[in-house]
Protein backbone atom coordinates (compact mmCIF):
# COMPACT_ATOMS: atom_id res chain seq x y z
CA UNK A 1 0.00 0.00 0.00
CA UNK A 2 1.17 3.54 -0.76
CA UNK A 3 2.42 5.62 2.12
CA UNK A 4 0.08 8.49 1.24
CA UNK A 5 -2.89 6.12 1.37
CA UNK A 6 -1.82 4.85 4.81
CA UNK A 7 -1.50 8.45 6.00
CA UNK A 8 -4.99 9.28 4.77
CA UNK A 9 -6.42 6.25 6.56
CA UNK A 10 -4.66 7.36 9.74
CA UNK A 11 -6.16 10.84 9.37
CA UNK A 12 -9.63 9.31 9.11
CA UNK A 13 -9.00 7.42 12.34
CA UNK A 14 -7.78 10.54 14.10
CA UNK A 15 -10.65 12.68 12.86
CA UNK A 16 -13.66 10.38 12.81
CA UNK A 17 -12.56 7.22 14.68
CA UNK A 18 -13.20 5.51 11.34
CA UNK A 19 -13.35 1.75 11.96
CA UNK A 20 -13.09 0.75 8.30
CA UNK A 21 -9.93 2.84 7.95
CA UNK A 22 -8.54 1.08 11.00
CA UNK A 23 -9.37 -2.34 9.54
CA UNK A 24 -7.20 -1.48 6.50
CA UNK A 25 -4.31 -0.27 8.65
CA UNK A 26 -4.68 -3.49 10.62
CA UNK A 27 -4.65 -5.67 7.49
CA UNK A 28 -1.49 -4.00 6.25
CA UNK A 29 0.53 -3.79 9.46
CA UNK A 30 -0.60 -6.67 11.70
CA UNK A 31 1.18 -9.40 9.64
CA UNK A 32 4.36 -7.29 9.41
CA UNK A 33 4.38 -6.50 13.12
CA UNK A 34 3.69 -10.15 13.92
CA UNK A 35 6.63 -11.13 11.69
CA UNK A 36 8.85 -8.58 13.49
CA UNK A 37 8.19 -10.28 16.84
CA UNK A 38 8.85 -13.72 15.38
CA UNK A 39 12.07 -12.47 13.77
CA UNK A 40 13.04 -11.27 17.24
CA UNK A 41 12.66 -14.84 18.51
CA UNK A 42 9.32 -14.43 20.26
CA UNK A 43 7.07 -17.48 19.99
CA UNK A 44 3.98 -17.37 17.82
CA UNK A 45 1.44 -17.35 20.64
CA UNK A 46 3.10 -14.37 22.34
CA UNK A 47 3.80 -12.61 19.06
CA UNK A 48 0.09 -12.59 18.36
CA UNK A 49 -0.74 -11.09 21.75
CA UNK A 50 1.94 -8.45 21.27
CA UNK A 51 0.64 -7.66 17.79
CA UNK A 52 -2.78 -7.12 19.32
CA UNK A 53 -1.28 -4.69 21.83
CA UNK A 54 0.58 -2.78 19.13
CA UNK A 55 -2.48 -2.35 16.93
CA UNK A 56 -4.61 -1.48 19.97
CA UNK A 57 -2.10 1.24 20.78
CA UNK A 58 -2.37 2.57 17.23
CA UNK A 59 -6.14 2.82 17.70
CA UNK A 60 -6.16 4.21 21.24
CA UNK A 61 -3.20 6.58 20.92
CA UNK A 62 -3.78 7.71 17.36
CA UNK A 63 -3.62 11.34 18.57
CA UNK A 64 0.12 10.90 19.25
CA UNK A 65 0.86 10.34 15.59
CA UNK A 66 1.89 13.36 13.53
CA UNK A 67 2.31 12.64 9.82
CA UNK A 68 4.43 15.76 9.30
CA UNK A 69 7.03 14.36 11.70
CA UNK A 70 7.41 10.74 10.76
CA UNK A 71 6.18 8.01 8.49
CA UNK A 72 3.40 5.89 9.96
CA UNK A 73 5.65 2.83 9.68
CA UNK A 74 8.26 4.55 11.88
CA UNK A 75 5.72 5.35 14.56
CA UNK A 76 4.34 1.80 14.51
CA UNK A 77 7.88 0.39 14.58
CA UNK A 78 8.64 2.34 17.78
CA UNK A 79 5.45 1.03 19.41
CA UNK A 80 6.35 -2.56 18.46
CA UNK A 81 9.91 -2.09 19.70
CA UNK A 82 8.64 -0.75 23.04
CA UNK A 83 6.32 -3.75 23.42
CA UNK A 84 9.20 -6.08 22.65
CA UNK A 85 11.40 -4.49 25.32
CA UNK A 86 8.58 -4.69 27.83
CA UNK A 87 7.93 -8.33 26.98
CA UNK A 88 11.59 -9.35 27.23
CA UNK A 89 11.89 -7.49 30.52
CA UNK A 90 8.92 -9.32 32.03
CA UNK A 91 10.13 -12.69 30.78
CA UNK A 92 13.76 -12.27 31.62
CA UNK A 93 15.41 -14.67 34.06
CA UNK A 94 17.06 -11.68 35.70
CA UNK A 95 15.09 -10.41 38.65
CA UNK A 96 14.26 -6.85 37.90
CA UNK A 97 13.63 -4.49 40.73
CA UNK A 98 10.05 -3.32 41.16
CA UNK A 99 10.45 -0.74 38.44
CA UNK A 100 12.82 -1.49 35.60
CA UNK A 101 13.82 1.82 34.14
CA UNK A 102 13.33 0.68 30.58
CA UNK A 103 9.64 0.55 31.21
CA UNK A 104 9.44 4.33 31.25
CA UNK A 105 12.34 5.05 28.90
CA UNK A 106 10.58 3.50 25.97
CA UNK A 107 7.17 5.06 26.24
CA UNK A 108 4.96 5.73 23.26
CA UNK A 109 5.57 9.27 22.28
CA UNK A 110 5.59 11.56 19.33
CA UNK A 111 8.68 11.33 17.23
CA UNK A 112 10.16 14.75 16.82
CA UNK A 113 12.76 16.90 15.14
CA UNK A 114 12.71 15.37 11.69
CA UNK A 115 11.28 17.14 8.69
CA UNK A 116 9.33 14.92 6.33
CA UNK A 117 11.50 15.89 3.34
CA UNK A 118 14.70 15.32 5.20
CA UNK A 119 13.57 11.85 6.21
CA UNK A 120 12.61 11.03 2.64
CA UNK A 121 15.96 12.18 1.29
CA UNK A 122 17.83 10.19 3.86
CA UNK A 123 15.94 6.99 3.08
CA UNK A 124 16.60 7.51 -0.63
CA UNK A 125 20.31 7.86 0.08
CA UNK A 126 20.32 4.69 2.12
CA UNK A 127 18.59 2.87 -0.71
CA UNK A 128 21.03 4.24 -3.28
CA UNK A 129 24.27 3.91 -1.42
CA UNK A 130 23.94 0.59 0.37
CA UNK A 131 23.94 -2.59 -1.69
CA UNK A 132 21.53 -5.47 -1.10
CA UNK A 133 23.77 -7.41 1.24
CA UNK A 134 24.52 -4.32 3.32
CA UNK A 135 20.80 -3.61 3.67
CA UNK A 136 20.17 -7.20 4.73
CA UNK A 137 22.92 -6.96 7.34
CA UNK A 138 21.48 -3.75 8.75
CA UNK A 139 18.08 -5.37 8.97
CA UNK A 140 19.41 -8.51 10.64
CA UNK A 141 21.54 -6.56 13.09
CA UNK A 142 19.23 -3.75 14.15
CA UNK A 143 15.70 -4.79 13.18
CA UNK A 144 15.84 -8.50 13.95
CA UNK A 145 18.54 -7.99 16.63
CA UNK A 146 20.53 -11.01 15.56
CA UNK A 147 24.02 -11.53 16.94
CA UNK A 148 26.99 -11.19 14.60
CA UNK A 149 27.51 -14.93 15.01
CA UNK A 150 23.94 -15.69 13.89
CA UNK A 151 24.29 -13.34 10.91
CA UNK A 152 27.53 -15.08 9.91
CA UNK A 153 25.81 -18.49 10.11
CA UNK A 154 22.77 -17.42 8.12
CA UNK A 155 24.70 -15.64 5.38
CA UNK A 156 27.40 -18.32 5.40
CA UNK A 157 30.29 -15.90 5.70
CA UNK A 158 33.02 -15.77 8.38
CA UNK A 159 32.29 -13.95 11.65
CA UNK A 160 35.24 -11.59 11.14
CA UNK A 161 33.83 -10.56 7.76
CA UNK A 162 30.44 -9.78 9.31
CA UNK A 163 32.05 -7.63 11.98
CA UNK A 164 34.21 -5.69 9.54
CA UNK A 165 31.36 -5.21 7.06
CA UNK A 166 28.98 -3.92 9.72
CA UNK A 167 31.67 -1.54 10.92
CA UNK A 168 32.12 -0.39 7.34
CA UNK A 169 28.38 0.15 6.89
CA UNK A 170 28.19 2.15 10.13
CA UNK A 171 31.07 4.35 9.01
CA UNK A 172 29.36 4.89 5.67
CA UNK A 173 26.10 5.73 7.39
CA UNK A 174 27.78 8.60 9.27
CA UNK A 175 27.58 10.54 6.03
CA UNK A 176 23.84 10.42 5.69
CA UNK A 177 22.89 10.40 9.33
CA UNK A 178 24.92 13.36 10.54
Amino acid at each position, binding site marked *: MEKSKLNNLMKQIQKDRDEMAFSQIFDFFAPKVNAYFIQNRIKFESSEELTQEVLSTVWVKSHLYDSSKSALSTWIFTIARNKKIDFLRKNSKINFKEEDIREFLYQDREIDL*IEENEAKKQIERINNELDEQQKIMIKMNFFENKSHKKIADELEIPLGTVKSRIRHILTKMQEFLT
Partner: protein
Amino acid sequence: MNGTVVKNQLIFDFASGILGPAKSLFASTYLELNSDASKIGSKFENMLGENLMDNENIHPKNLKYTDCMNNKNIKPDSNLKDPVTSLFGNLNNLNWKQVYKGFKEYAASIDDKDELKLIKMDPGVSVPLHSHGGKEYILVLEGSFCDEYGKYSRGDIQINDQKIKHTPIASKDTGCVCLSITEKDVIFFGKYGSFLNLFTFIKSFFK
Protein backbone atom coordinates in the same frame (compact mmCIF):
# COMPACT_ATOMS: atom_id res chain seq x y z
CA MET B 1 36.68 2.98 15.32
CA ASN B 2 36.44 6.74 15.64
CA GLY B 3 34.41 8.53 18.31
CA THR B 4 31.41 9.35 16.11
CA VAL B 5 30.96 5.72 15.13
CA VAL B 6 30.97 4.65 18.77
CA LYS B 7 28.45 7.37 19.68
CA ASN B 8 26.19 6.41 16.80
CA GLN B 9 26.46 2.76 17.72
CA LEU B 10 25.04 3.68 21.13
CA ILE B 11 22.16 5.57 19.47
CA PHE B 12 21.45 2.74 17.00
CA ASP B 13 21.47 0.13 19.76
CA PHE B 14 19.10 2.29 21.78
CA ALA B 15 16.73 2.68 18.80
CA SER B 16 16.86 -1.09 18.26
CA GLY B 17 16.01 -1.67 21.90
CA ILE B 18 18.90 -3.99 22.70
CA LEU B 19 20.72 -2.06 25.42
CA GLY B 20 20.72 -3.20 29.05
CA PRO B 21 18.91 -1.00 31.62
CA ALA B 22 21.95 1.11 32.59
CA LYS B 23 22.93 1.97 29.04
CA SER B 24 19.28 2.51 28.04
CA LEU B 25 18.96 5.17 30.68
CA PHE B 26 22.24 6.74 29.70
CA ALA B 27 21.33 6.81 26.00
CA SER B 28 17.84 8.14 26.54
CA THR B 29 19.20 10.99 28.67
CA TYR B 30 21.77 11.69 25.96
CA LEU B 31 19.03 11.93 23.32
CA GLU B 32 17.01 14.19 25.56
CA LEU B 33 19.84 16.66 26.16
CA ASN B 34 21.46 16.59 22.74
CA SER B 35 19.29 17.53 19.77
CA ASP B 36 21.84 16.33 17.19
CA ALA B 37 21.91 12.89 18.80
CA SER B 38 18.12 12.89 19.00
CA LYS B 39 17.90 13.68 15.31
CA ILE B 40 20.21 10.81 14.43
CA GLY B 41 18.06 8.56 16.62
CA SER B 42 14.91 9.63 14.77
CA LYS B 43 16.57 9.11 11.39
CA PHE B 44 17.65 5.66 12.42
CA GLU B 45 14.13 4.87 13.62
CA ASN B 46 12.90 5.98 10.19
CA MET B 47 15.18 3.44 8.63
CA LEU B 48 13.88 0.70 10.93
CA GLY B 49 10.36 1.87 10.07
CA GLU B 50 11.19 1.30 6.39
CA ASN B 51 12.25 -2.22 7.32
CA LEU B 52 8.84 -2.72 8.90
CA MET B 53 7.11 -1.29 5.82
CA ASP B 54 8.89 -3.84 3.59
CA ASN B 55 8.81 -6.67 6.08
CA GLU B 56 7.45 -10.08 5.21
CA ASN B 57 3.92 -10.98 6.30
CA ILE B 58 3.23 -13.62 8.91
CA HIS B 59 -0.48 -13.47 9.51
CA PRO B 60 -1.79 -13.76 13.06
CA LYS B 61 -4.17 -16.72 13.24
CA ASN B 62 -6.77 -15.62 15.76
CA LEU B 63 -6.68 -11.88 15.63
CA LYS B 64 -9.21 -9.57 14.07
CA TYR B 65 -9.08 -5.80 13.90
CA THR B 66 -12.08 -5.56 16.22
CA ASP B 67 -9.99 -7.27 18.93
CA CYS B 68 -7.77 -4.23 18.89
CA MET B 69 -10.50 -1.67 19.40
CA ASN B 70 -11.67 -2.67 22.86
CA ASN B 71 -8.40 -3.35 24.59
CA LYS B 72 -8.76 -1.97 28.11
CA ASN B 73 -5.06 -2.45 28.90
CA ILE B 74 -3.97 0.40 26.68
CA LYS B 75 -4.41 3.80 28.30
CA PRO B 76 -4.58 6.85 26.07
CA ASP B 77 -2.72 9.09 28.49
CA SER B 78 1.01 8.79 28.61
CA ASN B 79 2.77 10.28 31.51
CA LEU B 80 6.28 11.05 30.36
CA LYS B 81 8.99 11.35 32.95
CA ASP B 82 12.51 12.67 32.75
CA PRO B 83 14.75 9.59 33.22
CA VAL B 84 17.42 11.10 35.48
CA THR B 85 14.90 12.70 37.82
CA SER B 86 12.82 9.52 38.01
CA LEU B 87 15.83 7.47 38.98
CA PHE B 88 17.74 9.86 41.23
CA GLY B 89 15.20 12.48 42.33
CA ASN B 90 16.53 15.96 43.06
CA LEU B 91 20.32 15.83 42.58
CA ASN B 92 20.87 18.30 45.42
CA ASN B 93 19.26 15.98 47.96
CA LEU B 94 21.35 12.94 47.14
CA ASN B 95 23.54 11.28 49.68
CA TRP B 96 26.75 11.78 47.67
CA LYS B 97 29.76 9.67 48.54
CA GLN B 98 33.05 11.51 48.59
CA VAL B 99 35.81 9.66 46.71
CA TYR B 100 38.37 12.39 47.39
CA LYS B 101 38.19 16.10 48.04
CA GLY B 102 35.97 17.82 45.47
CA PHE B 103 35.04 14.55 43.73
CA LYS B 104 31.81 12.78 44.70
CA GLU B 105 29.79 9.99 43.20
CA TYR B 106 26.42 8.39 43.61
CA ALA B 107 25.79 4.92 42.20
CA ALA B 108 22.34 4.00 40.87
CA SER B 109 20.86 0.80 42.19
CA ILE B 110 20.30 -0.91 38.88
CA ASP B 111 20.70 -4.62 38.37
CA ASP B 112 23.00 -4.67 35.35
CA LYS B 113 26.52 -5.66 34.37
CA ASP B 114 27.30 -2.02 33.60
CA GLU B 115 27.60 0.40 36.47
CA LEU B 116 25.63 3.63 36.23
CA LYS B 117 26.53 6.51 38.48
CA LEU B 118 26.48 10.24 38.88
CA ILE B 119 29.75 12.09 39.26
CA LYS B 120 30.02 15.54 40.81
CA MET B 121 33.20 17.57 40.56
CA ASP B 122 33.69 20.89 42.35
CA PRO B 123 34.95 23.85 40.28
CA GLY B 124 38.56 23.36 39.14
CA VAL B 125 38.89 19.83 40.51
CA SER B 126 40.73 17.34 38.34
CA VAL B 127 40.84 13.56 38.06
CA PRO B 128 44.35 12.04 38.10
CA LEU B 129 45.59 10.68 34.77
CA HIS B 130 43.89 7.35 34.24
CA SER B 131 42.89 4.81 31.65
CA HIS B 132 40.01 2.32 31.57
CA GLY B 133 39.69 -1.42 31.82
CA GLY B 134 36.47 -1.52 29.81
CA LYS B 135 34.66 1.33 28.10
CA GLU B 136 33.59 4.39 30.03
CA TYR B 137 30.75 6.65 28.89
CA ILE B 138 30.40 10.16 30.31
CA LEU B 139 27.49 12.54 29.68
CA VAL B 140 27.58 16.08 31.04
CA LEU B 141 24.33 17.02 32.83
CA GLU B 142 25.39 20.33 34.39
CA GLY B 143 28.43 22.59 34.03
CA SER B 144 31.38 21.41 31.96
CA PHE B 145 34.82 19.81 32.04
CA CYS B 146 37.78 19.67 29.72
CA ASP B 147 40.67 17.31 29.13
CA GLU B 148 43.44 16.74 26.59
CA TYR B 149 40.83 16.06 23.90
CA GLY B 150 38.50 19.05 24.26
CA LYS B 151 35.75 20.75 26.24
CA TYR B 152 32.53 18.97 27.16
CA SER B 153 29.34 20.83 28.12
CA ARG B 154 25.73 19.87 28.91
CA GLY B 155 24.56 17.22 26.45
CA ASP B 156 28.07 16.26 25.26
CA ILE B 157 29.34 12.74 25.71
CA GLN B 158 32.76 11.24 25.83
CA ILE B 159 33.41 7.54 25.31
CA ASN B 160 36.76 6.24 26.50
CA ASP B 161 38.41 2.89 26.04
CA GLN B 162 41.64 1.20 27.09
CA LYS B 163 43.75 3.25 24.70
CA ILE B 164 42.77 6.62 26.11
CA LYS B 165 44.60 8.19 29.02
CA HIS B 166 43.23 11.53 30.11
CA THR B 167 43.09 14.09 32.92
CA PRO B 168 39.63 15.67 33.10
CA ILE B 169 39.34 19.04 34.88
CA ALA B 170 36.00 20.51 35.95
CA SER B 171 35.21 24.07 34.84
CA LYS B 172 36.59 26.68 37.25
CA ASP B 173 33.25 28.54 37.27
CA THR B 174 30.61 25.85 37.44
CA GLY B 175 32.17 22.50 38.27
CA CYS B 176 30.24 19.67 36.66
CA VAL B 177 27.75 16.89 37.20
CA CYS B 178 27.96 13.92 34.83
CA LEU B 179 26.21 10.66 34.28
CA SER B 180 28.63 7.83 33.72
CA ILE B 181 28.64 4.20 32.69
CA THR B 182 31.61 2.04 33.49
CA GLU B 183 32.01 -1.39 32.04
CA LYS B 184 34.98 -2.13 34.28
CA ASP B 185 36.98 -0.23 36.86
CA VAL B 186 39.35 2.48 35.67
CA ILE B 187 43.14 2.14 36.01
CA PHE B 188 44.97 5.13 37.51
CA PHE B 189 48.50 6.31 36.74
CA GLY B 190 50.80 8.92 38.31
CA LYS B 191 51.54 10.06 41.84
CA TYR B 192 48.44 8.68 43.57
CA GLY B 193 47.83 6.05 40.90
CA SER B 194 48.79 2.97 42.84
CA PHE B 195 46.83 4.15 45.87
CA LEU B 196 43.68 4.81 43.83
CA ASN B 197 44.02 1.47 42.05
CA LEU B 198 44.29 -0.24 45.42
CA PHE B 199 41.25 1.73 46.55
CA THR B 200 39.10 0.62 43.60
CA PHE B 201 40.39 -2.91 44.07
CA ILE B 202 39.34 -2.96 47.72
CA LYS B 203 36.07 -1.23 46.90
CA SER B 204 35.21 -4.04 44.50
CA PHE B 205 34.96 -6.42 47.47
CA PHE B 206 32.14 -4.38 48.96
CA LYS B 207 29.90 -4.29 45.91
